[in-house]
């Protein structure tokens, strides 16, 4: 499973969120390949799930991509809930 964390520039926020996503996945015992990138690259790169802020996810939505929006990118409980809801149940 490949998860791509996306932000506008792709070298600040997305990296920090990647760290938090990895932390949560480890806690849930889910194996995944997580990386971060900017919006332009993210649009061209294939992944099973895309994670980021609602504004960025909106721009990625094409009816095919599976996107997960986070309001608070630093809230581990919110990330955990979002992953459980979107990934574990699939």
């Amino acid at each position, binding site marked *: 499973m490949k998860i791509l964390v996306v*932000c*506008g*520039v792709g*070298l*600040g*926020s997305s*990296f*920090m*969120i990647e*760290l*938090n996503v990895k932390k949560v996945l480890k806690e849930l015992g889910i194996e995944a390949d997580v990386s971060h990138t900017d*919006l332009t690259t993210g649009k061209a790169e294939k992944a099973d799930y895309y994670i*980021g*802020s609602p*504004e*960025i996810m909106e721009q990625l939505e094409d009816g095919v991509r599976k996107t997960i929006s986070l*309001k*608070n*990118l*630093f*809230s*581990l409980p919110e990330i955990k809930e979002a992953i459980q809801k979107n990934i574990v149940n699939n």
Partner: protein
Amino acid sequence: MLNQLLTLDTIQIRQDVRDWKEAIQIAAVPLLKKGSIQPEYIDAMIENVQDYGPYIVLAPKIALAHARPEQGVKELGMSLLCLKESVAFSQESRHDANLIFVLAAADSETHLNTLSQLAGLLSNEEAIQSIMEADSTLQIMKVINQYSS
């Protein structure tokens, strides 16, 4: 290390600002003075918000402004502006911010260690609360020191 970039010289406390553009401009002044960035980097950060929206408000009350290394970064730097009155990055209240961090990354690698320490800090609500309530930059430094190893 986070406390080598966020120092008494790069942290500012201020009552309020006119708008989010002024917040980014003021927050970046210490980096301009230190020579970490060129003036055009500030414009690039503002354009980023205009292009991509208020996503730089990463968590309630917290914004991280940055642009790309080639848009005017001379060396790695970080600064922080703490506002007593929040500034709006959009019409929606969830985009109000009190803590404006500015990141100047010189490439896509060297800042990652510092950012992982910042991520640790920003994930802790108590630490954020202490920084927002601090009356002096020294108090803020004490919180940052705890997240710098």
